[in-house]
């Protein structure tokens, strides 16, 4: 049975918080994962105090972090689309959907994970989720993979109900934390809060997904 997992997100570190445990569980049982990452998070704001990065050096740092994060959870197939942070919603959505479709045709995923359109806060997240939904909707129903979405807007549970899938990732907690820590230019605050705040630790050990109604 094909159990290829395809993860599609716009920024390095989008995979870390909500999905890297699921990814690690998948690769640990020998199942393939393809990660499509659209940008290098060039517009990230965390530069450090004193600053360790500039607007121009940040993408070089984040490229390395992304590679380390993939290694931490066993991702061997990373596809980078070379787009620019904060511009995804201004790209042609159909063109983006077509690019996703060609990856889908190639790896034939059983499951795709992306952001839930309308419930993922950042404009790049929203645009990515919309283009993935467009791509999957254009497929014959019998060919469509399962589409799982990450939602974290304030009204997510109110509108969508409880997550359809809650995965306990405590068995791969160390891998997940290594993935989060790999993105250290952006995630130091999260690492600190997981170490100090029991509620945050609890939150990181569960990953929540909603099935998108196709």
């Amino acid at each position: 049975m094909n159990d290829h997992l395809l993860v599609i997100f716009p920024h390095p570190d989008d995979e870390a918080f909500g999905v890297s445990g699921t990814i690690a569980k998948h690769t640990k049982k020998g199942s393939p994962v393809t990660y499509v990452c659209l940008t290098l998070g060039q517009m990230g704001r965390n530069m450090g105090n004193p600053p360790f990065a500039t607007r121009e050096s940040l993408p070089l740092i984040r490229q390395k972090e992304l590679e380390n994060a993939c290694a931490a959870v066993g991702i061997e197939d990373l596809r980078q689309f070379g787009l620019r942070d904060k511009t995804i919603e201004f790209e042609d959505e159909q063109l983006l959907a077509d690019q996703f479709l060609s990856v889908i045709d190639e790896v034939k995923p059983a499951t795709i994970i992306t952001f839930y359109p309308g419930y993922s806060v950042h404009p790049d997240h929203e645009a990515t989720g919309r283009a993935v939904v467009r791509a999957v909707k254009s497929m014959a129903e019998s060919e469509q993979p399962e589409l799982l979405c990450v939602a974290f807007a304030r009204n997510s549970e109110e509108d969508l109900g409880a997550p359809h899938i809650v995965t306990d990732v405590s068995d791969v907690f160390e891998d997940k934390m290594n993935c989060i820590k790999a993105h250290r230019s952006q995630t130091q605050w999260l690492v600190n809060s997981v170490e100090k705040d029991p509620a945050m630790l609890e939150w990181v050990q569960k990953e929540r997904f909603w099935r998108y109604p196709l």
Partner: protein
Amino acid sequence: MQPIQANDVQNALDQLIGKELYLHLETTNGAYANHNNESVLTVNAYIRNGKVTPLSGKIMGIGPFRVGLKIELGWIYAEGLTHWEIDSEGRLLLAGHDQEGRLAVALQLSTSPFDV
């Protein structure tokens, strides 16, 4: 980057007057500003590779600093600048960081286009 020394930045600006330059100008309070605090408006403005020829340029203030560039038909301006450097490619990078080290404003000038 280094904390801004106004004289050094002024000298760097003086070198760029009259040259055809590529401009990166940005201000942001973060894509999650409103998500984190509903009373705050998420704002961000951004120009990547605007082509400009400054007629004059000045750094003002006692820190954080302001930089204004006069151009043929108008002005370019940034406030809240705290750090600067001339990077390895000879570009003038100015940025304003808050106490947590988050970039809030950037003004950058280069004789060749910035990567996109």
